[in-house]
Protein backbone atom coordinates (compact mmCIF):
# COMPACT_ATOMS: atom_id res chain seq x y z
CA UNK A 1 0.00 0.00 0.00
CA UNK A 2 2.70 2.43 1.05
CA UNK A 3 4.84 1.36 -1.90
CA UNK A 4 1.95 1.87 -4.32
CA UNK A 5 1.26 5.34 -2.88
CA UNK A 6 4.94 6.20 -3.02
CA UNK A 7 5.19 5.10 -6.65
CA UNK A 8 2.05 7.01 -7.61
CA UNK A 9 3.32 10.18 -5.92
CA UNK A 10 6.78 9.79 -7.46
CA UNK A 11 5.27 9.40 -10.92
CA UNK A 12 3.01 12.42 -10.29
CA UNK A 13 6.01 14.48 -9.18
CA UNK A 14 7.99 13.54 -12.30
CA UNK A 15 5.03 13.91 -14.68
CA UNK A 16 4.08 17.37 -13.41
CA UNK A 17 7.76 18.32 -13.44
CA UNK A 18 7.86 17.40 -17.13
CA UNK A 19 4.61 19.30 -17.70
CA UNK A 20 6.35 22.50 -16.62
CA UNK A 21 8.26 22.36 -19.89
CA UNK A 22 5.42 21.08 -22.04
CA UNK A 23 2.66 23.58 -21.28
CA UNK A 24 2.62 26.88 -23.12
CA UNK A 25 1.41 29.17 -20.35
CA UNK A 26 3.45 30.64 -17.53
CA UNK A 27 0.58 30.17 -15.06
CA UNK A 28 0.21 26.49 -15.95
CA UNK A 29 3.97 25.98 -15.72
CA UNK A 30 4.04 27.56 -12.25
CA UNK A 31 1.24 25.45 -10.91
CA UNK A 32 2.50 22.26 -12.57
CA UNK A 33 5.71 22.87 -10.61
CA UNK A 34 3.62 23.39 -7.46
CA UNK A 35 1.88 20.04 -8.01
CA UNK A 36 5.30 18.42 -8.34
CA UNK A 37 6.44 19.97 -5.04
CA UNK A 38 3.23 18.94 -3.29
CA UNK A 39 3.68 15.34 -4.46
CA UNK A 40 7.16 15.40 -2.90
CA UNK A 41 5.65 16.85 0.31
CA UNK A 42 3.12 14.00 0.36
CA UNK A 43 6.04 11.56 0.05
CA UNK A 44 7.65 13.20 3.09
CA UNK A 45 4.32 12.79 4.93
CA UNK A 46 4.40 9.10 3.97
CA UNK A 47 7.63 8.71 5.94
CA UNK A 48 5.75 9.95 9.04
CA UNK A 49 7.65 13.24 9.12
CA UNK A 50 4.40 15.13 9.61
CA UNK A 51 5.93 18.46 10.59
CA UNK A 52 8.38 18.57 7.69
CA UNK A 53 5.67 17.50 5.25
CA UNK A 54 3.18 20.12 6.44
CA UNK A 55 5.84 22.84 6.38
CA UNK A 56 6.88 21.88 2.84
CA UNK A 57 3.24 22.17 1.73
CA UNK A 58 2.93 25.54 3.47
CA UNK A 59 6.18 26.99 2.15
CA UNK A 60 5.80 25.69 -1.39
CA UNK A 61 2.29 27.09 -1.86
CA UNK A 62 3.27 30.55 -0.59
CA UNK A 63 6.48 30.43 -2.58
CA UNK A 64 4.91 29.35 -5.85
CA UNK A 65 2.07 31.88 -5.63
CA UNK A 66 4.62 34.66 -5.11
CA UNK A 67 6.70 33.09 -7.89
CA UNK A 68 3.67 33.15 -10.19
CA UNK A 69 3.49 36.91 -9.75
CA UNK A 70 7.16 37.36 -10.64
CA UNK A 71 7.36 34.72 -13.37
CA UNK A 72 4.44 36.25 -15.20
CA UNK A 73 5.80 39.76 -14.63
CA UNK A 74 9.24 38.94 -16.08
CA UNK A 75 8.31 36.64 -18.98
CA UNK A 76 9.15 37.83 -22.45
CA UNK A 77 5.54 37.90 -23.55
CA UNK A 78 3.28 40.66 -22.30
CA UNK A 79 1.57 39.71 -19.05
CA UNK A 80 2.17 36.04 -19.78
CA UNK A 81 -1.18 35.85 -21.50
CA UNK A 82 0.29 34.72 -24.82
CA UNK A 83 1.65 31.22 -25.49
CA UNK A 84 5.31 30.89 -24.60
CA UNK A 85 8.05 28.29 -24.46
CA UNK A 86 10.07 27.26 -21.43
CA UNK A 87 12.97 25.95 -23.56
CA UNK A 88 16.28 27.77 -23.74
CA UNK A 89 19.63 26.26 -24.71
CA UNK A 90 18.04 22.82 -25.08
CA UNK A 91 21.17 20.86 -26.02
CA UNK A 92 23.36 22.27 -23.24
CA UNK A 93 20.59 21.83 -20.71
CA UNK A 94 20.03 18.20 -21.77
CA UNK A 95 23.74 17.40 -21.33
CA UNK A 96 23.94 19.10 -17.92
CA UNK A 97 20.73 17.44 -16.67
CA UNK A 98 21.78 14.02 -17.96
CA UNK A 99 25.16 14.23 -16.25
CA UNK A 100 23.62 15.52 -13.03
CA UNK A 101 20.98 12.77 -12.99
CA UNK A 102 23.61 10.09 -13.67
CA UNK A 103 25.85 11.52 -10.94
CA UNK A 104 23.09 11.67 -8.34
CA UNK A 105 21.82 8.17 -9.21
CA UNK A 106 25.37 6.82 -8.98
CA UNK A 107 25.63 8.54 -5.60
CA UNK A 108 22.56 6.68 -4.33
CA UNK A 109 24.09 3.31 -5.13
CA UNK A 110 27.71 4.08 -4.28
CA UNK A 111 27.20 5.95 -1.00
CA UNK A 112 27.86 4.02 2.18
CA UNK A 113 24.50 4.62 3.87
CA UNK A 114 24.54 4.44 7.67
CA UNK A 115 22.49 1.80 9.44
CA UNK A 116 19.76 2.91 11.85
CA UNK A 117 20.98 2.97 15.42
CA UNK A 118 18.33 2.85 18.11
CA UNK A 119 14.60 3.00 17.47
CA UNK A 120 12.33 5.54 15.88
CA UNK A 121 11.66 8.39 18.36
CA UNK A 122 8.23 8.85 19.87
CA UNK A 123 7.91 12.39 18.55
CA UNK A 124 10.12 13.06 15.51
CA UNK A 125 9.13 16.76 15.53
CA UNK A 126 10.53 17.22 19.04
CA UNK A 127 13.71 15.33 18.06
CA UNK A 128 14.14 17.47 14.97
CA UNK A 129 13.68 20.65 16.99
CA UNK A 130 16.19 19.50 19.59
CA UNK A 131 18.69 18.46 16.93
CA UNK A 132 18.41 21.82 15.18
CA UNK A 133 18.19 24.09 18.18
CA UNK A 134 20.17 22.42 20.96
CA UNK A 135 23.59 21.47 19.61
CA UNK A 136 23.54 23.78 16.61
CA UNK A 137 22.02 26.85 18.19
CA UNK A 138 25.04 29.01 17.32
CA UNK A 139 24.92 27.87 13.69
CA UNK A 140 21.20 28.57 13.49
CA UNK A 141 21.54 32.00 15.08
CA UNK A 142 24.42 32.95 12.75
CA UNK A 143 22.44 31.66 9.80
CA UNK A 144 19.37 33.63 10.83
CA UNK A 145 21.22 36.91 11.32
CA UNK A 146 23.14 36.42 8.05
CA UNK A 147 19.93 35.77 6.13
CA UNK A 148 18.23 38.73 7.74
CA UNK A 149 21.09 41.13 7.01
CA UNK A 150 21.18 39.85 3.43
CA UNK A 151 17.50 40.66 3.04
CA UNK A 152 17.93 44.13 4.56
CA UNK A 153 21.00 44.82 2.39
CA UNK A 154 19.20 43.67 -0.75
CA UNK A 155 16.22 45.89 -0.03
CA UNK A 156 18.47 48.87 0.72
CA UNK A 157 20.36 48.36 -2.55
CA UNK A 158 17.24 47.76 -4.59
CA UNK A 159 14.92 50.46 -3.33
CA UNK A 160 14.54 53.51 -5.50
CA UNK A 161 13.36 55.71 -2.68
CA UNK A 162 15.28 56.18 0.53
CA UNK A 163 14.56 58.18 3.64
CA UNK A 164 15.83 61.42 2.03
CA UNK A 165 13.18 61.08 -0.68
CA UNK A 166 10.54 60.47 1.96
CA UNK A 167 11.51 63.00 4.62
CA UNK A 168 13.50 65.66 2.70
CA UNK A 169 17.22 66.47 2.60
CA UNK A 170 17.32 67.36 6.29
CA UNK A 171 15.01 64.50 7.29
CA UNK A 172 12.79 67.07 8.94
CA UNK A 173 9.57 66.76 6.97
CA UNK A 174 6.63 66.29 9.32
CA UNK A 175 4.80 64.05 6.89
CA UNK A 176 6.67 61.57 4.63
CA UNK A 177 6.12 62.00 0.89
CA UNK A 178 4.96 58.52 -0.13
CA UNK A 179 3.48 57.54 -3.51
CA UNK A 180 0.92 55.29 -1.81
CA UNK A 181 -0.86 56.13 1.39
CA UNK A 182 -0.81 53.67 4.23
CA UNK A 183 -3.27 52.89 6.97
CA UNK A 184 -1.25 54.09 9.92
CA UNK A 185 -1.58 57.71 8.86
CA UNK A 186 2.10 58.63 8.77
Amino acid sequence: MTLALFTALALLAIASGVLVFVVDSMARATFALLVSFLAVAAMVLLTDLLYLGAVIILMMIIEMVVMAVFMIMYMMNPAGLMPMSMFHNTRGAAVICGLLFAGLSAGIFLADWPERRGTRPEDPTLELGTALMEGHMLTMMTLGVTLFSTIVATVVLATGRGRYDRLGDRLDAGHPDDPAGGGVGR
Partner: protein
Amino acid sequence: MTSATPFLLPVLLVAGVWFVAVLDGALADRAAGYGSGARRALSRTGREAARLLVAQRRTTLAADGLLRWAGVLALIVAAVLAAGVVPLGWEAPADLSVGVVWFNAMEVVAWAAVWLVGWGPNSALSLTGGYRFVAQGLSYELPHMFAIITAALGAGSLRMSDIVDAQADVWFAVWMPAAFAAYLLSATAMAFWGPFDAPVGRDVAGGAAGELSGVDRLLFEGGRRLLLVAAAAVAVPLFLGGGHGPWLPAWAWVLVKTLAVLALLVWVRHRLPVLRMDRWSEVSWIVLLPLTMLQALAVALVVLARGGGGQ
Protein backbone atom coordinates in the same frame (compact mmCIF):
# COMPACT_ATOMS: atom_id res chain seq x y z
CA MET B 1 -19.36 9.39 17.79
CA THR B 2 -15.68 8.63 17.22
CA SER B 3 -16.10 6.46 14.15
CA ALA B 4 -18.77 8.73 12.71
CA THR B 5 -16.83 12.01 12.94
CA PRO B 6 -15.13 11.81 9.52
CA PHE B 7 -18.55 11.48 7.91
CA LEU B 8 -20.13 14.04 10.17
CA LEU B 9 -17.58 16.72 9.31
CA PRO B 10 -18.82 17.58 5.78
CA VAL B 11 -22.42 17.69 7.02
CA LEU B 12 -21.49 20.07 9.83
CA LEU B 13 -19.45 22.24 7.47
CA VAL B 14 -22.31 22.54 4.99
CA ALA B 15 -24.67 23.35 7.86
CA GLY B 16 -22.21 26.07 8.91
CA VAL B 17 -22.19 27.47 5.38
CA TRP B 18 -25.98 27.52 5.38
CA PHE B 19 -25.96 29.33 8.75
CA VAL B 20 -23.57 31.94 7.35
CA ALA B 21 -25.63 32.41 4.20
CA VAL B 22 -28.92 32.77 6.09
CA LEU B 23 -27.57 35.18 8.69
CA ASP B 24 -25.76 37.16 6.02
CA GLY B 25 -28.96 37.37 3.96
CA ALA B 26 -31.05 38.40 6.96
CA LEU B 27 -28.63 41.20 7.84
CA ALA B 28 -28.52 42.34 4.22
CA ASP B 29 -32.33 42.38 4.13
CA ARG B 30 -32.50 44.43 7.30
CA ALA B 31 -30.00 46.91 5.89
CA ALA B 32 -32.01 47.14 2.68
CA GLY B 33 -35.19 47.81 4.67
CA TYR B 34 -37.13 44.61 4.01
CA GLY B 35 -37.98 44.34 7.69
CA SER B 36 -37.87 41.11 9.62
CA GLY B 37 -37.94 38.65 6.74
CA ALA B 38 -36.62 35.60 8.54
CA ARG B 39 -38.54 33.22 6.27
CA ARG B 40 -37.28 35.05 3.20
CA ALA B 41 -33.69 34.71 4.40
CA LEU B 42 -34.18 31.03 5.22
CA SER B 43 -35.47 30.10 1.80
CA ARG B 44 -33.31 32.42 -0.25
CA THR B 45 -30.11 30.41 0.21
CA GLY B 46 -31.76 27.33 -1.26
CA ARG B 47 -33.32 29.27 -4.09
CA GLU B 48 -30.04 30.96 -4.94
CA ALA B 49 -28.21 27.61 -4.94
CA ALA B 50 -30.88 26.07 -7.19
CA ARG B 51 -30.72 29.07 -9.55
CA LEU B 52 -26.94 28.77 -9.87
CA LEU B 53 -27.19 25.01 -10.41
CA VAL B 54 -29.46 25.34 -13.43
CA ALA B 55 -28.02 28.58 -14.78
CA GLN B 56 -26.15 28.44 -18.04
CA ARG B 57 -22.42 28.91 -17.68
CA ARG B 58 -20.90 32.03 -19.18
CA THR B 59 -17.53 31.66 -20.84
CA THR B 60 -14.87 34.18 -21.79
CA LEU B 61 -12.53 34.30 -24.76
CA ALA B 62 -9.33 32.22 -24.41
CA ALA B 63 -10.17 31.29 -20.83
CA ASP B 64 -8.01 28.78 -18.98
CA GLY B 65 -10.82 26.52 -17.78
CA LEU B 66 -8.50 23.93 -16.27
CA LEU B 67 -6.80 26.39 -13.93
CA ARG B 68 -10.12 27.98 -12.98
CA TRP B 69 -11.55 24.57 -12.07
CA ALA B 70 -8.38 23.73 -10.15
CA GLY B 71 -8.81 26.94 -8.17
CA VAL B 72 -12.48 26.39 -7.36
CA LEU B 73 -11.90 22.78 -6.31
CA ALA B 74 -8.77 23.60 -4.31
CA LEU B 75 -10.72 26.15 -2.26
CA ILE B 76 -13.31 23.53 -1.20
CA VAL B 77 -10.86 20.67 -0.62
CA ALA B 78 -8.55 22.90 1.42
CA ALA B 79 -11.38 24.15 3.63
CA VAL B 80 -12.55 20.60 4.41
CA LEU B 81 -9.00 19.37 5.09
CA ALA B 82 -8.31 22.40 7.28
CA ALA B 83 -11.43 21.72 9.35
CA GLY B 84 -10.40 18.08 9.80
CA VAL B 85 -8.11 18.89 12.74
CA VAL B 86 -10.85 20.64 14.77
CA PRO B 87 -11.92 18.56 17.77
CA LEU B 88 -15.71 18.12 17.56
CA GLY B 89 -16.17 17.58 21.26
CA TRP B 90 -12.93 16.02 22.47
CA GLU B 91 -11.91 14.13 19.35
CA ALA B 92 -11.01 15.50 15.95
CA PRO B 93 -11.62 13.54 12.73
CA ALA B 94 -7.83 13.73 12.29
CA ASP B 95 -6.05 14.73 15.48
CA LEU B 96 -2.61 15.25 13.91
CA SER B 97 0.42 15.84 16.12
CA VAL B 98 1.08 18.94 13.97
CA GLY B 99 -2.56 20.07 13.73
CA VAL B 100 -1.77 23.78 13.92
CA VAL B 101 0.78 23.60 11.09
CA TRP B 102 -1.57 21.43 9.03
CA PHE B 103 -4.36 23.99 9.39
CA ASN B 104 -1.94 26.73 8.35
CA ALA B 105 -0.77 24.73 5.32
CA MET B 106 -4.33 24.02 4.16
CA GLU B 107 -5.42 27.59 4.65
CA VAL B 108 -2.71 29.04 2.37
CA VAL B 109 -4.14 26.87 -0.42
CA ALA B 110 -6.67 29.72 -0.67
CA TRP B 111 -3.87 31.94 -2.01
CA ALA B 112 -3.32 29.64 -4.96
CA ALA B 113 -7.05 29.00 -5.36
CA VAL B 114 -8.16 32.63 -5.53
CA TRP B 115 -5.28 33.60 -7.78
CA LEU B 116 -6.12 30.70 -10.13
CA VAL B 117 -9.80 31.62 -10.20
CA GLY B 118 -8.81 35.21 -10.97
CA TRP B 119 -6.40 34.14 -13.71
CA GLY B 120 -8.61 31.54 -15.36
CA PRO B 121 -11.19 33.68 -17.19
CA ASN B 122 -8.55 35.78 -19.03
CA SER B 123 -10.18 38.95 -17.76
CA ALA B 124 -8.31 41.97 -16.41
CA LEU B 125 -10.70 42.76 -13.55
CA SER B 126 -10.82 39.24 -12.23
CA LEU B 127 -7.02 39.02 -12.43
CA THR B 128 -6.85 42.24 -10.39
CA GLY B 129 -8.96 40.49 -7.76
CA GLY B 130 -6.57 37.53 -7.75
CA TYR B 131 -3.54 39.78 -7.26
CA ARG B 132 -5.34 41.67 -4.51
CA PHE B 133 -5.79 38.46 -2.60
CA VAL B 134 -2.08 37.65 -2.88
CA ALA B 135 -1.25 41.11 -1.50
CA GLN B 136 -3.78 40.61 1.28
CA GLY B 137 -2.33 37.18 2.05
CA LEU B 138 1.21 38.54 2.29
CA SER B 139 -0.09 41.05 4.81
CA TYR B 140 -2.16 38.79 7.05
CA GLU B 141 -0.03 35.65 6.95
CA LEU B 142 2.75 36.63 9.38
CA PRO B 143 0.50 38.03 12.15
CA HIS B 144 -1.69 34.97 11.58
CA MET B 145 1.23 32.57 12.02
CA PHE B 146 2.37 34.35 15.17
CA ALA B 147 -1.18 34.23 16.55
CA ILE B 148 -1.66 30.49 16.07
CA ILE B 149 1.89 29.70 17.20
CA THR B 150 1.24 31.69 20.39
CA ALA B 151 -1.66 29.37 21.23
CA ALA B 152 0.55 26.35 20.51
CA LEU B 153 3.28 27.89 22.67
CA GLY B 154 0.88 28.34 25.57
CA ALA B 155 0.00 24.65 25.42
CA GLY B 156 3.48 23.41 24.54
CA SER B 157 2.06 21.35 21.68
CA LEU B 158 0.99 21.65 18.05
CA ARG B 159 -1.79 19.11 18.59
CA MET B 160 -5.26 20.66 18.74
CA SER B 161 -6.52 18.37 21.53
CA ASP B 162 -3.48 19.25 23.70
CA ILE B 163 -4.20 22.94 23.14
CA VAL B 164 -7.80 22.35 24.25
CA ASP B 165 -6.60 20.46 27.34
CA ALA B 166 -4.34 23.35 28.30
CA GLN B 167 -7.40 25.61 28.48
CA ALA B 168 -9.28 23.65 31.13
CA ASP B 169 -8.96 26.55 33.58
CA VAL B 170 -8.46 29.71 31.56
CA TRP B 171 -9.23 30.22 27.88
CA PHE B 172 -6.30 31.41 25.78
CA ALA B 173 -8.50 34.26 24.51
CA VAL B 174 -8.37 35.67 28.05
CA TRP B 175 -4.62 35.82 28.52
CA MET B 176 -3.65 36.12 24.81
CA PRO B 177 -6.12 38.79 23.67
CA ALA B 178 -3.81 40.27 21.02
CA ALA B 179 -3.23 36.86 19.44
CA PHE B 180 -6.97 36.17 19.47
CA ALA B 181 -7.77 39.52 17.86
CA ALA B 182 -5.07 38.99 15.21
CA TYR B 183 -6.46 35.50 14.57
CA LEU B 184 -10.00 36.79 14.08
CA LEU B 185 -8.76 39.51 11.69
CA SER B 186 -6.67 37.07 9.68
CA ALA B 187 -9.45 34.46 9.64
CA THR B 188 -11.70 37.08 8.08
CA ALA B 189 -9.00 38.09 5.60
CA MET B 190 -8.28 34.45 4.72
CA ALA B 191 -11.86 33.88 3.61
CA PHE B 192 -11.80 37.37 1.95
CA TRP B 193 -14.84 38.15 4.01
CA GLY B 194 -16.29 41.33 5.46
CA PRO B 195 -13.92 44.29 5.51
CA PHE B 196 -11.37 42.16 3.62
CA ASP B 197 -13.45 41.32 0.56
CA ALA B 198 -11.60 43.70 -1.77
CA PRO B 199 -10.42 40.67 -3.88
CA VAL B 200 -14.07 40.15 -4.87
CA GLY B 201 -14.98 43.81 -4.45
CA ARG B 202 -17.64 45.72 -6.34
CA ASP B 203 -15.05 48.30 -7.46
CA VAL B 204 -13.48 45.61 -9.68
CA ALA B 205 -16.85 44.24 -10.83
CA GLY B 206 -16.72 41.18 -8.59
CA GLY B 207 -12.94 40.72 -8.83
CA ALA B 208 -11.71 37.15 -8.76
CA ALA B 209 -15.29 35.85 -8.84
CA GLY B 210 -16.43 38.38 -11.45
CA GLU B 211 -16.54 36.02 -14.43
CA LEU B 212 -17.84 32.98 -12.55
CA SER B 213 -21.35 31.77 -13.29
CA GLY B 214 -23.58 28.78 -12.69
CA VAL B 215 -22.02 25.83 -10.85
CA ASP B 216 -18.60 27.49 -10.77
CA ARG B 217 -19.96 30.45 -8.85
CA LEU B 218 -21.95 28.22 -6.51
CA LEU B 219 -18.86 26.17 -5.67
CA PHE B 220 -16.60 29.20 -5.31
CA GLU B 221 -18.98 31.11 -3.05
CA GLY B 222 -19.64 27.91 -1.10
CA GLY B 223 -15.93 27.21 -0.80
CA ARG B 224 -15.29 30.71 0.46
CA ARG B 225 -17.92 30.28 3.18
CA LEU B 226 -16.54 26.81 3.96
CA LEU B 227 -13.17 28.44 4.58
CA LEU B 228 -14.82 31.00 6.85
CA VAL B 229 -16.55 28.22 8.80
CA ALA B 230 -13.28 26.28 9.08
CA ALA B 231 -11.40 29.37 10.28
CA ALA B 232 -14.12 30.15 12.85
CA ALA B 233 -14.16 26.53 14.01
CA VAL B 234 -10.38 26.54 14.55
CA ALA B 235 -10.67 29.65 16.73
CA VAL B 236 -12.58 27.48 19.24
CA PRO B 237 -9.84 24.93 20.11
CA LEU B 238 -7.09 27.55 19.75
CA PHE B 239 -8.50 30.36 21.88
CA LEU B 240 -11.99 29.61 23.23
CA GLY B 241 -11.34 26.48 25.28
CA GLY B 242 -12.69 23.93 22.78
CA GLY B 243 -15.27 21.71 24.47
CA HIS B 244 -14.64 23.10 27.96
CA GLY B 245 -17.67 24.65 29.61
CA PRO B 246 -20.28 23.95 32.27
CA TRP B 247 -23.60 22.04 31.90
CA LEU B 248 -23.46 21.22 28.20
CA PRO B 249 -21.51 18.30 26.67
CA ALA B 250 -18.26 19.09 24.86
CA TRP B 251 -19.65 18.78 21.34
CA ALA B 252 -22.44 21.23 22.15
CA TRP B 253 -19.95 23.77 23.46
CA VAL B 254 -17.83 23.46 20.31
CA LEU B 255 -20.95 24.00 18.22
CA VAL B 256 -22.18 26.97 20.26
CA LYS B 257 -18.78 28.66 20.27
CA THR B 258 -18.24 28.11 16.54
CA LEU B 259 -21.65 29.58 15.73
CA ALA B 260 -20.93 32.54 18.01
CA VAL B 261 -17.62 33.27 16.22
CA LEU B 262 -19.36 32.88 12.85
CA ALA B 263 -22.16 35.21 13.89
CA LEU B 264 -19.57 37.79 14.96
CA LEU B 265 -17.73 37.55 11.62
CA VAL B 266 -20.97 37.85 9.65
CA TRP B 267 -22.14 40.79 11.76
CA VAL B 268 -18.78 42.58 11.35
CA ARG B 269 -19.13 42.26 7.58
CA HIS B 270 -22.24 44.43 7.69
CA ARG B 271 -20.78 46.98 10.11
CA LEU B 272 -17.41 47.83 8.56
CA PRO B 273 -16.47 49.25 5.14
CA VAL B 274 -14.05 47.45 2.80
CA LEU B 275 -10.39 48.00 3.69
CA ARG B 276 -8.12 49.12 0.88
CA MET B 277 -5.10 46.88 0.27
CA ASP B 278 -2.48 49.65 0.73
CA ARG B 279 -4.00 50.72 4.05
CA TRP B 280 -4.37 47.18 5.35
CA SER B 281 -0.80 46.24 4.36
CA GLU B 282 0.71 49.03 6.42
CA VAL B 283 -1.51 48.40 9.45
CA SER B 284 -0.72 44.71 9.26
CA TRP B 285 3.06 45.07 8.99
CA ILE B 286 3.57 48.04 11.30
CA VAL B 287 0.95 47.47 14.00
CA LEU B 288 -0.28 43.89 13.91
CA LEU B 289 3.02 42.07 13.33
CA PRO B 290 4.97 43.69 16.24
CA LEU B 291 1.88 43.32 18.42
CA THR B 292 1.63 39.57 17.80
CA MET B 293 5.40 39.19 18.30
CA LEU B 294 5.15 40.93 21.67
CA GLN B 295 2.21 38.71 22.52
CA ALA B 296 4.24 35.61 21.65
CA LEU B 297 7.12 36.93 23.77
CA ALA B 298 4.82 37.57 26.75
CA VAL B 299 3.33 34.07 26.49
CA ALA B 300 6.82 32.55 26.15
CA LEU B 301 7.90 34.31 29.35
CA VAL B 302 4.82 33.07 31.20
CA VAL B 303 5.45 29.51 29.98
CA LEU B 304 9.10 29.73 31.10
CA ALA B 305 8.11 31.16 34.48
CA ARG B 306 5.77 28.21 34.99
CA GLY B 307 8.72 25.96 34.26
CA GLY B 308 7.11 24.64 31.10
CA GLY B 309 9.99 25.03 28.61
CA GLY B 310 11.23 21.52 27.83
CA GLN B 311 9.20 18.38 28.09
